[in-house]
């Protein structure tokens, strides 16, 4: 479906989105509910909920919201 977002969410509705994918927020970081482990970005970074940009298909790719990530996403850098 490309890299044009069709499902937008606000920061306050993020917990609801995460819940759908078995994730939640603990100490400000996005974690996997089953294991309690932090979710990592494709660059191997822990993701603060406030700096979470979005979720892309390719199993589950959690992307940060900084400019570099946005540029990479737009260029298809997270495509599998």
């Amino acid at each position, binding site marked *: *479906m*490309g*890299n*044009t*977002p*069709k*499902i*937008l*969410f*606000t*920061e*306050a*509705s*993020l917990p*609801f*989105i995460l*819940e*759908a*994918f078995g994730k939640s927020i603990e100490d400000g970081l996005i974690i996997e509910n089953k294991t309690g482990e932090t979710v990592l970005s494709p*660059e191997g970074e822990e993701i603060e909920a406030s700096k*979470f*940009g*979005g*979720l*892309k*298909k390719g199993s*589950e790719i959690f992307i940060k*919201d*900084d*400019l*570099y990530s*946005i*540029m990479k*996403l*737009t*260029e298809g850098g997270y495509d599998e």
Partner: protein
Amino acid sequence: MGTTSKPEKIQSKSVADSIIEHLDKKKSIILIDGSEGDSDLARGGYSYSFDDKTNILTVVVENLSPSEKISVHKSLVKAHNDEHLFWKASKSELISKYKAYSSSNENAQILIFFKKILKPDDYNALKTSLYMESLAKQGMSIHSFKMGIRERFGLRGANISNLCSANYFEEVFMPLYNDTSQEEFYKYYELAVGEKAIALFVNSGMTVNKIKTEVGLMLEKAKKYRLKEFKIHGKGKINVNNINKFVKSIVPNKDGFIPVKLYEDDKLKVIEYNVVVFNNTESE
């Protein structure tokens, strides 16, 4: 949220089905919490509303019943499996802006030039910084973007960002690479980027005393690397004022250096000094 059609309380299946239906029709969906966006929609207890002008379906997650939440969760997972991108609403504009920026080839020449000569992290910091500067020219606040560059690429990346904003890459590094040996280029580049010995960028956290301290450190680097000069850059009213106060406070013959103003723009609040260093003969 704009003009909306009359909100309807709907059954859980309808909310979930509505999401899938809208995505199938390539329409957008935004999920909000009751504390945000259209408060009338939230206060009215409505689960969703469709804006027929923007073609956006707004879902108020706070107003979903437990069974509706389960259904909507399932529809979100389906949307994900169908390869729809979920994205933070406040950052969605940056995607379309970057598409337009890329198409314009605004900085293509600089990027092509440096891609082959910089390490990947330096190149990516430069690439991100160039886009950030483009956003700044459009009037966007770039503070959070600068923080993002610093977080991802460290102090070196932050320095690349500063050097980029002062046009060092196209006006200094590019001609230097073309006119000198690779060894000379990388030596100077590392002094500028890694050692931060070529330029001091004054930020709003720097008082006049802090600038004095930082200039002292720059002088030590100048002596260490036998540099005859370095630059001081400032942007913004406070930074420009503090740099000018610092310059007025120095005694050239006593302090061992003399600042020469190269550029000042009162309207843009930008200033640049070249600091000429005396008695710079110590070896490493």
